[in-house]
């Protein structure tokens, strides 16, 4: 037992004290923060002020456009040609010419330099509304103020409420659940593969430089293999903790750095909606117009998210997913002579790890049924598949069954890999086949 501790500490400290470990650990969160923050900052700051000259032959639209944060509508006198000249001279960014007569729902938007993409949509929406209101007043003699009031009070609001076994309801954001599920799934997938590969490389290194023969004359191969797997696991947990800590610090720093007003209400949704709709401008401009379908209508749903369950499950599935793959990789690493030969064995066992991710988009609509349910139970796929399901709520018995199956499978993997390892680690110059591995396991 004492020797296992020794092995773990060597495997741990040689990795943790490596320069590359320190650099990767520190750089990744910075890089991630930059990747997240840069588009947001660009979206917030780079949109320049847009000045639009409006000319309407019917004069109906004069002074009717609402200015946005960065969009200003001006109504100078003069004909279109003159305004166009002014646009070329840089006095405005665009000229909106609304056609007269019965064509008041038609317009031309002239510009010299291309304005923000969202401008056209913004104008279109505003004109739609102005024209619609005009029709209401002219044709139906509607009291516009009253109409707006009725419209507001009759607006439909759907609260997504998830109920647990006790029947207690909690607000839930289905879209957010999916996103968090997918992100965590990708993280598990990446981490598991990354650290399991480290075990593979390390086993291969010891085999090819033959230090293994000295070591297995001191400790049992099983002890050594387990020491290595656990040591690398601790490296993974350390790196993960450091990175999460670093991201946390960076976020706090960013919050202090960026003016508070920019971060409030608009900033958070923009940032995340950004990733989804890919169009920052829309949101900014659209914020002037009442928007009922924002997924962040009720920001408090965020706080009802099952954080503690998620964190516990994430750690559990990360650790045991890693343990399963690391022991498989250790077995494979011991059986082959070089990294190239290992590919034929790595690929088949890695496909299940990535399978849930590949299928996720097609399953996003039904996270609780069908194939994803089965994938979240089958040990090789469950670390990723179950994490994907958890934010949407998973019955306790399913969670426990899945965890139990994973642990049981891990025990089996270690047992099988230890058998392969014991034989393989001292076997050189032999092309290994699946049949051969099977023979070693039964041996």
């Amino acid at each position: 037992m004492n020797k296992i501790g020794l092995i773990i500490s060597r495997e741990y400290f040689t990795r943790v004290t490596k320069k590359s470990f320190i650099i990767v650990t520190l750089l990744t969160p910075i890089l991630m923060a930059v990747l997240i923050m840069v588009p947001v900052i660009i979206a917030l700051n780079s949109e320049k002020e847009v000045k639009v000259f409006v000319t309407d032959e019917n004069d109906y639209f004069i002074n009717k456009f609402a200015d946005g944060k960065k969009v200003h509508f001006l109504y100078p006198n003069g004909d279109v040609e003159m305004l166009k000249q002014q646009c070329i001279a840089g006095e405005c960014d665009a000229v909106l010419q609304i056609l007269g007569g019965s064509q008041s729902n038609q317009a031309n938007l002239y510009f010299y330099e291309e304005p923000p993409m969202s401008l056209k949509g913004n104008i279109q929406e505003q004109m739609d509304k102005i024209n619609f209101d005009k029709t209401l007043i002219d044709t139906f003699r509607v009291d516009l103020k009253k109409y707006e009031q009725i419209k507001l009070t009759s607006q439909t609001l759907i609260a997504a409420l998830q109920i647990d076994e006790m029947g207690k309801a909690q607000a839930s954001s289905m879209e957010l659940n999916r996103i968090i599920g997918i992100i965590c799934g990708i993280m598990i997938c990446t981490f598991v593969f990354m650290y399991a590969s480290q075990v593979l490389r390390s086993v291969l290194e010891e085999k090819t430089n033959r230090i293994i023969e000295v070591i297995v004359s001191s400790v049992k191969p099983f002890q050594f293999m387990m020491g290595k797997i656990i040591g690398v696991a601790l490296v993974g947990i350390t790196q993960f903790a450091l990175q999460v800590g670093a991201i946390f610090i960076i976020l706090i720093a960013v919050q202090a750095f960026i003016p508070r007003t920019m971060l409030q209400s608009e900033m958070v949704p923009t940032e995340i909606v950004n990733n989804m709709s890919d169009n920052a401008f829309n949101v900014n401009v659209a914020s002037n117009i009442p928007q009922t379908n924002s997924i962040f209508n009720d920001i408090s749903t965020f706080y009802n998210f099952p954080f503690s369950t998620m964190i516990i499950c994430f750690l559990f599935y990360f650790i045991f997913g890693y343990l399963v793959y690391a022991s498989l990789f250790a077995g494979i690493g011991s059986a082959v002579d070089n990294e190239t030969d290992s590919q034929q064995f790595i690929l088949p066992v890695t496909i299940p790890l990535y399978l849930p991710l590949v299928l996720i988009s097609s399953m996003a609509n039904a996270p609780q049924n069908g194939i994803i349910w089965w994938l979240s139970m089958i040990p090789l796929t469950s670390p990723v598949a179950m994490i994907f399901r958890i934010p949407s709520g998973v019955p306790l018995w399913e969670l426990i069954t899945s965890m139990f199956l994973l642990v049981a499978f891990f025990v089996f993997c270690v047992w099988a890999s230890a058998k392969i390892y014991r034989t393989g680690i001292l076997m050189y110059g032999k092309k290994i086949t699946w049949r051969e591995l099977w023979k070693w396991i039964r041996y």
Partner: protein
Amino acid sequence: MNIIDIQNVTKKFSNHIALNDFSLSIPQGCIFGLLGPNGAGKTTLIRILNQITAPDSGVVLYDGKPLCRDFIEKIGYLPEERGLYKKMKISEQTIYLAQLKGLTKEEAKKRLLYWFKKFEIESWWNRKVEELSKGMQQKIQFIVTIIHHPDFLIFDEPFSGFDPINTDLLKNEILQLKKNGNTIILSTHNMASVEEICDEIVLINKGEKVLSGKLGEVKHAFKSNLFQIEVARLPLDFLTEMPASFQITETVTTDSSHVLNVQISSDSNANQLLDFFIHRVPILSFHEILPSMNEIFIRTITSQNNNS
């Protein structure tokens, strides 16, 4: 008193038998040569002694008790294919390997520093293995093998990769270990070193013991009544007078003497040969030519392989 008793050990692999009903005793305090052609089963035997692999049947006794994990720390093993962690500092690495053999960190460091000083390699302490030559690494590996003061040592081709000076250094260390009462197994293809330092040998072929015993006894068993006599000049009549039971196999003539290799038939003896020369010419030297281990090795293995 035997430190190791191997009794009827058999080890099979999927397609061949590495050791077949193999028995061997290794007396305490000797240097024991483990010889055999490639693939004879030497490495398997060594791995069984190290408990890296287990025999299919048969028992191995260490000091009269069945071999178990408790004896691991009493055995030192220098494998033929040996390696070190390339990227690790030599100090950290040697301490780690010594700790795996059950030493405390402090004790390991103390002993290592003693050996580094003795081998005059203190300057390597903080270097990485990848900076060292193969011979330098061998020295480190030798130190790691003996650092935990094992009673029983197994050296597999210890001299390969060493220059003559370091070979000598290592040879002396091995002899010193023997003097201290340790038992040493020396597995090697270098027959000269076997003759130089081994007390007993065993020759293995195809998983079976074909020859074993004290080095001198083995050689005597293989002697073929060949003698070398050095005389100041050749007797004038010796070609006609010499009895037919003496056969000259080789003659070397130098400025001052003639060296003759003489084969004596079994019904004759060395005294009769001397008697023939002593009355005719001055004799400068006379001795029996014993076969070298090299010859014994080749003769035994080829004849066995031809028979099967």
